[in-house]
């Protein structure tokens, strides 16, 4: 499991509001059939897990066939959160 999954989970566990925004090839493990249970586990741990709509479309991944706890969202969400002052880390 990638180290930033742990970071996101720990931050959420410490009471922080955490969003993991998947973009580019990062959306591939968001597919319902992907063997990547870590993302759904993050969602269950309270992390908001979003997948970029454009990146999904580029890869012919249907937004209504994502793994449990993951939902499609526009990239605007990132700009919204930056404008709101949320700390942002690119991984």
């Amino acid at each position, binding site marked *: 499991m990638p180290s930033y999954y742990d970071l996101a989970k720990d931050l959420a566990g410490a009471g922080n509001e955490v969003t993991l925004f998947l*973009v*580019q*090839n990062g959306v591939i493990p968001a597919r319902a059939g992907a063997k990547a249970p870590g993302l759904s586990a993050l969602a269950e741990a309270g992390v908001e897990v979003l997948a970029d709509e*454009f990146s999904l479309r580029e890869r012919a991944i249907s937004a209504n066939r994502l793994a449990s706890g993951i939902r499609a969202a526009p*990239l*605007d969400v*990132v*700009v919204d959160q*930056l*404008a709101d*002052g*949320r700390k*942002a880390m*690119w991984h």
Partner: protein
Amino acid sequence: MAGKKTLTFAIMDPPYESGRSTTAFRLIDIAVKRGYDVNVFAYEGAVCLPFAKQQAHPNAVHGREAEEENHPLPKDWVAALIKSAATNGGKLDWVNCGLCVDERGVAEAIEGVRRGTPADLWKLAEGSDNTLVIGTR
């Protein structure tokens, strides 16, 4: 920080190399269309994005002339973002790291791009509501 939002993006990828450049352009596009003031600090290969001497080319393999090929040029995307910012009541301040420019011989940038130093990233971040660093791998 009240009033108009100011965001800073630090980017490092050269043209045509990574989807990160596309994502960075998309983020900047969203921000400037909202009328935000946007700073871009281009470091390392990203200083080549607004290089004025980029040229569209024909594609001999497919037998297409340059016009038919309609080759996308990052300098045109940067120019479009600068124009979009102004149209929407904001400003796009694109700062190219001068050291990186000199190393790569790409001093001829399009209008609206200025030369700076890594210290400018700190200054831009200090004056912003938020900063996103999109690093290379």
